[in-house]
């Protein structure tokens, strides 16, 4: 792309805000009542997160999340969003890759180990997940958009991504960076899209992404420090 420095984010926005939010309105109407199912799945994840138990809980959560990511990839990005944004086919591919990574890392290899949040950073992760499940869908209507355009966990990309970030942060064992990359990239893409459309909630996705990135880095560093400390004691 010649003279790339002359391009602004708005040069890549192919649609109007009205068209973008109408997309959610029509999507919600077409898939109803799938939203109830995904919200129930979100509650199920919460229950699994709060209960003590075996490693199967992490596998179950990873499988549920993978299903949500795959659904968003297919039903939203590929079948709907791509009708107004040719880049959405790439978004669909990225979401499908994240679903595969969740299945492989979390459901098959069992690397997503969950236990009730103990440390503050784990609790922040739990809070971010709750935010995505309960608060984030309300932001659009509170910002003046129609209720029928609401974006819900499991069917819309933004709350699905934020919920995933929260869960990955809440997992007390280790930071699974391979699972964080695509959600963090989506925070930048989604935030840029809303910012270009001058949406009042454009800050939510970049803020959530930056917060999780910082806390995950801090968590990884303290964990490495603890491991080094325990080795020096041996």
């Amino acid at each position, binding site marked *: 792309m010649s003279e790339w420095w002359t391009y602004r984010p708005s040069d890549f926005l192919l*649609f109007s805000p009205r068209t973008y939010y109408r*997309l959610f309105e029509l999507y919600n109407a077409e898939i109803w009542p799938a939203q109830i199912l995904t919200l129930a799945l979100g509650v199920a994840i919460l229950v699994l997160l709060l209960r003590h138990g075996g490693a199967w809980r992490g596998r179950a959560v990873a499988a549920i999340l993978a299903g949500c990511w795959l659904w968003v990839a297919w039903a939203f990005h590929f079948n709907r969003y791509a009708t107004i944004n040719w880049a959405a086919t790439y978004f669909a591919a990225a979401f499908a890759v994240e679903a595969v990574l969740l299945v492989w890392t979390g459901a098959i290899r069992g690397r997503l180990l969950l236990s009730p949040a103990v440390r503050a950073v784990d609790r922040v992760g739990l809070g971010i997940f709750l935010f995505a499940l309960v608060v984030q869908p309300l932001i659009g209507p509170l910002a003046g958009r129609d209720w029928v355009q609401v974006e819900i966990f499991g069917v819309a990309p933004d709350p699905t991504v934020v919920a995933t970030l929260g869960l990955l942060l809440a997992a007390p064992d280790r930071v699974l960076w391979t699972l964080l990359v695509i959600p963090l990239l989506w925070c930048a893409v989604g935030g840029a899209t809303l910012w270009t459309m001058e949406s009042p909630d454009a800050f939510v996705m970049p803020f959530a992404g930056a917060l999780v990135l910082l806390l995950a880095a801090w968590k990884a560093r303290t964990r490495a420090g603890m491991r080094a400390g325990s080795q020096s004691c041996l």
Partner: protein
Amino acid sequence: MTQLPRAGRRRLLRALAATGATAMLWPSLGSAQQRPPLTRPIPSSGEAMPVVGLGSWITFNVGNDRVARDASAEVMRNFFAGGGRMIDSSPMYGSSQEVIGYGLAKLGHPPPLFSADKVWISAGARGRDQIEKSRQHWQVPRFDLLQVHNLLAWEEHLPTLFAMKAAGHLRYVGITTSEGRRHREVEEIMRSQPLDFVQITYNVLDRDVEARILPLARDRGMGVIVNRPFREGALIKSIQRYPLPAWAAEIDCTSWAQFILKFIVSHPAVTCAIPATTSVAHVRENLGAASGRLPDEAMRRRMVAHVEKL
């Protein structure tokens, strides 16, 4: 070099469209037309082109939303009823081509249509396939004008377009750029290639093209299509809080949109401006700029000075 359109029904209808007889022959388009719009001849053929066309960037990219598609068709209906002809799109514009095709089918394929589209793909070998796909979206037998979008792979695409024109599968060939990008390269292509059209950004605040590209287009006998006349609405948004100067009535302007469009189309090198809109009221207002008096050079300077002061 330039191939004039073949005689026949289509040519007759086009000529009638240019003289304002469309509404009589095409009653389904409505009866909004009061008088024929101002036209400019396409330099390479002499074909008359109304000075206000219709863009589709963002506005017609509404996906499969039936309500929005019908609204777009209504914009098109009013555009044709007001004497408009040129509709411009690109494969880059999401679903805009399909929405235009939907509207054209709904309106019964109005003969005045001057279909202007683009080729936008980095692999030259895939240009023809993309053009064919675009044609199917529009549901037209052939395009009137095809342009190389933002000069992307122009060295590969232009020979294809010239070959299509020579074979009678296309009537005009052009290139596009926007927002002042790659003007030096645009000039070089204009000097070396037998283009019919060049599409650029030009408005009362973005006047870089006045120095070299517009004079060059006149010298080379090329038509000029002006995109982003309102800076995607930002220009109108920034000045609409100010009252239209009283002297705008001297050039028959009743709105800022007409003020801006009249400035653009009064440049002698400009063939047509292509504002995009989702509003029937706005498309009528825009077409209003293609009637009445146009500013002379002194008035144009006054218009620039006034807007720059706001």
